[in-house]
């Protein structure tokens, strides 16, 4: 079995995997980082989105061996201790989640949207950018609000106040 090593949420990790092991399986089953979820088998739901070398990736669409040597960020690595990241706080303040299952993928996607599109995001842009993330609970309404608020909060660096606006 091939050995892989990568940095996950700032910590170096190693593991033996089958060559067919997906990155999401390595994260969930080997590292027991179960915040990254699996909601489909056709790479469409986006519940498994993580960042690989700073870019959002559906971790079900990548083999663990392909991430060898990479920097991986999962939902578990987004907050600073007990202080939520502004985007996480924005989801909480704006009721951007219900059952919570799609939420980690939504937040990781949202951070990538901000990286690519900046901090002033209109409704249409956010909805278009969420093409690869499914939610069955919220009707997306409050997710869109959360991402707009979170993006603005990230610019100001004051998570609680900005996200609550």
């Amino acid at each position: 079995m091939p050995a892989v090593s990568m940095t996950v949420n700032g910590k170096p990790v190693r593991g033996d995997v089958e060559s067919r092991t997906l990155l999401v399986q390595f994260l969930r089953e080997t590292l027991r980082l179960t915040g990254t979820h699996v909601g489909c088998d056709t790479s469409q739901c986006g519940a498994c989105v993580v960042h690989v070398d700073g870019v959002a990736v559906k971790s079900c669409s990548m083999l663990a061996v392909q991430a060898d040597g990479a920097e991986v960020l999962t939902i578990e690595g987004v907050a600073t201790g007990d202080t939520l990241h502004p985007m996480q706080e924005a989801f909480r303040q704006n009721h951007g989640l219900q059952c919570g299952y799609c939420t980690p993928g939504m937040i990781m996607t949202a951070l990538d949207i901000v990286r690519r599109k900046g901090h002033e995001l209109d409704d249409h842009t956010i909805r278009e950018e969420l093409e690869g993330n499914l939610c069955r609970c919220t009707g997306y309404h409050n997710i869109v609000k959360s991402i707009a608020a979170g993006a603005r909060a990230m610019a100001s660096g004051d998570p609680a106040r900005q996200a609550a606006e």
Partner: protein
Amino acid sequence: MNATGGSVTGIGAPVRRKEDFRFVTGNGRYTADIGRPGQVHLHFLRSTHAHARIVRIQAGHASRMPGVLAVITGADLAGDKLGPLVCGWMIHSTDGTPMKMAPHPALPADTVRYVGEPVVAVIAETPEQARDAAEAVVIDYEELPAVVDPAAAQREGAPQIHEVAPRNTIFHWQLGDAAAVDSAFARAASVTSLDIVNNRLVPNAIEPRGALAEFDPGSDSYTLWNTSQNPHVARLVLSAFVGVAPEHRLRVVAPDVGGGFGSKIFIYAEEVVALAAARRVRRPVRWICDRSEAFVADAHGRDHVTNAQLAFDRDGKILGLRVKTIANLGAYMSTFSSSVPTYLYATLLSGQYAIPAIHCSVDAVYTNTVPVDAYRGAGRPEATYVIERLMEVSARRLGVDPAELRRKNFVQKFPHQTPVIMSYDCGDYAASLDKALALADWAGFAARKRESETRGKLRGIGLSAYIEACGIAPSQAVGSLGAGVGLWESAEVRVNPTGSVEVLTGSHSHGQGHETTFAQLVSGRLGIPLDAVSIVHGDTDKVQFGMGTYGSRSGAVGMSAIVKALDKVEAKAKKVAAHLLEAAETDIVFENGTFTVAGTDKAATFGEVALNAYLAHKFAGADLEPGLKEGAFYDPVNFTFPAGTHVCEVEIDPDTGRVAVARFTAVDDFGVVINPMIVEGQVHGGIAQGIGQALMEQAVYDEGGQLVTGSYNDYVMPRAMDFPPLVVDTTVTPCPSNPLGMKGCGEAGAIAAPAAVMNAVTDALGTEDVPMPANQLAVWRVLQRQPRQAAE
């Protein structure tokens, strides 16, 4: 009641959710996240045929493959003497005969009846090994003719799916007064008739179903972690009917559950097999459903074929309603399948209207398709679609404003007894209608339509004035209608010596936010911080019994049980306070978290009373038991009747047939609202599923019984781009039948939206003959049929 209004965390406050910290940090704990030492993996080999005899199963090679621990077939399970899966709601046909419930073994011994039916279970050390071995199992089938269309299933000569059900008919049932309806139609000035198909849907909670079963030989007992909306009901059925283990030796835990929408109510074959396998291999056995597998493993929803007729007098008043429905229940009767097209459907056909005579007949049929059961709304979306399409079409035919035709027929006086069992307790339907019309700028539609025309687009507007029966349900009532269970709820309030509180509830939260709303109730009532309250649910070893969450019942029934338990806690605490403050119990007043002696400055905080309840130093003998813990069961005295008006505006591109929802407005009367933020979220989600049904979603079978829409590649799931920002508001008439005045909000959107959308689409297209879902292809076909009209 004390301190429940106006408080920053009490009833009515938009409190941010207590559960969110764990969810946004990836610390939620769903069934698939639970790892047990030594756990092994279960994979199902499923039928590739819609109807076939199993001639032979060759599993010898598979059972010797690497990592394989067991291969289990239907014959093996029969040897375990496990009972069949059952439907728990008895419906009798009009001739008095009971419904034709066919045996439903967890794994079939000789015949498969739908594509996806589990046939062989393989247990191996890793999921991949189980999957590889399942592929090596060879099943010889002898194909049988299949039928998927419910009307065709009833025809002479159709393939008979179960021996017990000639012409595949499970029951022929009716409700209402046929003679009164005939007489109403005989004197009608006009009659509107509609043929309606309510499309089959796949629930698609984003967390797929899963089960982790563990057998402990030392205590001869099982633990099942399961994606369930009602773990106690699951335990009861698995124990009393399937016979896995006695109730007291089976613990069912439903941890964080990623959405349900009805699909996680039912007791399925996979859980049974996982439990049986855990006993065989003496290791924890884990099954996590794949998404594409879920399309055939989870019960589907809706699938009605209906003819409906509405009779009016000369003044536009409704005289009578006649409805004939064929309901497709799939290949087996799922847990509550029989109740959906009967008592959850025909009882709501009166809508918001005073209709003197109603008759509904329903044929439920078997077909070679996935079993059909409750999906968000369950029967009520189907009823609303029937009556609200009829009202809209009638208004157009009669040349009157659709809002005015509705207004003219609204129920005005309460209580109102309909001809179909229900007694509406309260409501103000005109108030919701008026508010919705104003918020939707109904008056400005003509101008928006003209503006759309300048861009070559067709614009339409539609209404849906829905009603639903929630808060299910009075046990006596549902018992008399055939339910195999009572539909009360339980609660236990445990006050700790330090004054913090645990509430054990039989309700289950899978997105609804009970940890917050239930805590708001307790915090407001006891005057303690929200953080001092924990809500415990979803574990049969912690909560004694409960009926679970579905039918928008957790507020109206689950919270009412908590109120009853809190009443008892307060009464006991007053006794404790009387001892502590050395006063008469009748002089103790409890307000804002403090016990005082009336007319004095003597006072004790809730925390002091809690501590003294456990110290018991001042109780002086046997007149008062130590401790502060009370339980209650609440059985509702009536259903609740949320109602409202939804307005949809669509814009259609006549060149492509694409329908865009331009505006959507919802005004709902849910009675008293505990947390408006959470209620709005529930409405948003329901509307999205309703718009999904109207414009996108459809489970399609080909004639041979293959599910054509069997994955996210084929089944259209609504995405963010499919919706405009939603406008959501409420009106309030407090429900008189429960202590908090709540009605329930979880299903309204899914119930109201499909009719609103289809009324808008048909308005835009200028024809009533548009199938649901009005997807791009369907609309394009309509436009090709009527090119001139469409181009106007």
